């Protein structure tokens, strides 16, 4: 099957999934016991207020119409209006998203690098104390709630040792501004990148300082599965005939391990990264709350405390679409890289 037909087939499969996803969220928010509007006010509003409120948000229309409005809105990029001030949720989403993205990227780097390094070490020293302790570490780290680990890290590094900030994303008043092109500043919203683009080393230093603890917390908690994956992959590959044959030809151990064994582990790791993305986002919600990191996760938690159900709906939909998009890209990438499909 050629790559193109694979992509088309995949798209055809994804569309109904997205539809189901959107419908599902809609059902949860609108259909579950409790009308979102009255729940928002906790029965403290006069019928008149309630009616006006509903009208403003389009919640007074028949359910089916609401459904189509919802879908049509999403196509336009409209994620609804916040119950708190009727501002477009999409605006909030897009302004908070870069922070989450930066956290996700940093955590992914830590997660994958740690996972591969530890996994490879465990594989090479098979059945030794080193191997066992790494495996134990991998299992235990998953059982730690990420916010607990975050709190512990804050206590140790932020409060007791005072090496790193205890929360937040940046020193108040400073904002990386991004690239200067023809008198206009273009920022990505990713502070580390923007500091680099601006060429300001101090801002870069600060951005990284604030980023370390939250991404470490999230990366540590999720790296366990990568340790296991790398380890088992390498053990399998190292046993394979062509590895022994390579050794029989006198190739250096380093070439054998990294060139042959690790190369084969790469593809499953890539897939796993895609699969873990959902877990990454979920963990990001908790991490952002713990570290007061101004991302989409913290926005969601805020909205919960305000009982802002339309905003919650918007964010949940966004998360779902994001994960679907990432899975799609990973699938295509995998199909592209796997020589069995290519050759």
């Amino acid at each position, binding site marked *: 099957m050629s790559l193109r037909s694979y992509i088309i087939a995949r798209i055809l499969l994804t569309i109904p999934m997205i539809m189901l996803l959107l419908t599902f969220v809609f059902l949860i928010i609108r259909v579950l016991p409790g009308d979102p509007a009255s729940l928002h006010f906790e029965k403290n509003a006069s019928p008149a207020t309630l009616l006006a409120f509903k009208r403003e948000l389009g919640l007074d229309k028949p359910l089916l119409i609401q459904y189509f409005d919802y879908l049509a809105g999403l196509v336009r990029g409209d994620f609804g209006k916040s119950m708190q001030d009727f501002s477009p949720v999409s605006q909030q989403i897009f302004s908070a998203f870069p922070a989450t993205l930066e956290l996700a990227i940093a955590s992914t780097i830590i997660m994958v690098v740690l996972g591969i390094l530890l996994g490879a070490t465990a594989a090479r020293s*098979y*059945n030794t104390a080193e191997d066992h302790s790494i495996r134990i570490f991998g299992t235990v780290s998953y059982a730690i709630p990420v916010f607990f680990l975050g709190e512990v890290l804050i206590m140790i590094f932020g409060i007791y040792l005072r090496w790193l900030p205890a929360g937040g994303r940046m020193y108040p008043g400073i904002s990386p501004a991004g690239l200067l092109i023809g008198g206009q500043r273009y920022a990505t919203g990713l502070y580390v990148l923007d500091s680099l683009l601006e060429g300001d080393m101090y801002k870069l230093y600060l951005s990284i300082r604030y980023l370390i603890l939250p991404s470490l917390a999230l990366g540590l908690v999720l790296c366990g599965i990568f340790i296991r994956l790398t380890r088992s992959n390498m053990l399998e590959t190292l*046993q*394979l*005939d*062509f590895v*022994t*044959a*390579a*050794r*029989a*030809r*006198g*190739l*250096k*151990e380093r*070439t054998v391990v990294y060139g*042959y064994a690790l*190369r084969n582990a790469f593809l499953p790791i890539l897939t796993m990264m895609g699969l873990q993305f959902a877990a990454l986002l979920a963990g990001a919600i908790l991490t952002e709350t713990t570290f007061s990191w101004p991302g989409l996760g913290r926005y969601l938690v805020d909205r919960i405390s305000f009982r802002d159900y339309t905003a919650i709906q918007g964010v949940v939909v966004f998360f779902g679409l994001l994960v679907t998009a990432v899975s799609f890209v990973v699938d295509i990438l995998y199909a592209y890289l796997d*020589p069995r499909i290519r*050759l």
Partner: protein
Amino acid sequence: MSLLDIQSLIVEYHTLKANVRAVDRVSLSMEKGHTLGLVGESGCGKSTFGLSTLRLVPPPGRIVGGHITLDGTDIVNCSDEEIRKIRGKRIGYIFQDPMTSLNPVKRIGAHFVEMIRTHEPEVSERDALKRGREVLERLGILPERIDDFPHQFSGGMRQRVMIGLALALGPDLLIADEPTTSLDVIVEAQIIELLKELKESLKLTLILITHNIGIVAETADRVAVMYAGRLAELGQTDDLFEKPMHPYTQALLDSVPNITKKGQVLSWIPGAPPDLAEPPPGCLYHPRCPHAFDRCKKEEPSLTKHNGTYVACHLCDKR
């Protein structure tokens, strides 16, 4: 002076459940230019034996005793770097399954380049490829195919490529571990012919490991028969085939179907090889041996010379 000298080699696999002795005090020596056929059933330890000459016994296997000397170099105790240099350059190894022994994502040329440049870093990539092409041509493969991937070759061609890789650096010793087991009969014959021809022209010392006695008969000068990790018989090919002394060797030869004898019932050896985790006392073959007597059950026979052949059997000692 022998090229390869193996003294009392012991290789064990240490698992959580038991220690299995895959090779038990096997001694052997190879003169330059000679060919040895090593035969035995699956699991008798012949592959482990072959791999140990390169110190490539897979964990949890380990060489726990004995000596292996290649032209003066101590293989068991030399450093990792030294053994790495020997592999490929002084000893060539051909594996059983060419399909899984070649890296599926690397071109054949890359295999050659990688190997040649590891051992002779001064050689440029272009020259390495040139040498690779020469090797392929010598083996009857079109030199342009050096740019192909392993899966683009047929089984027989792949095995030729493996032979080519094993011989590319001009080793003195070639070990072929079941080189034809995964090939069909016709291709097998071709590969054996090829090996014989290479042996002649390159003056190779060859150890041919197989469970197929037939191919050993036409290629080897001497034959060693292994059973359950121990040497049962070791002698000149002609002697062994004409007058096999060990009951196991006799049974092996009997079990080869012979189409010239009409009405012959296929014979086989009853029973199964022993569980090496809990080996029987005395001679390991005695549970299946039709001639076993009391001594066989208690005392392990030692390898003794009878008329130029070494046999480990109490029966022969009696005679």
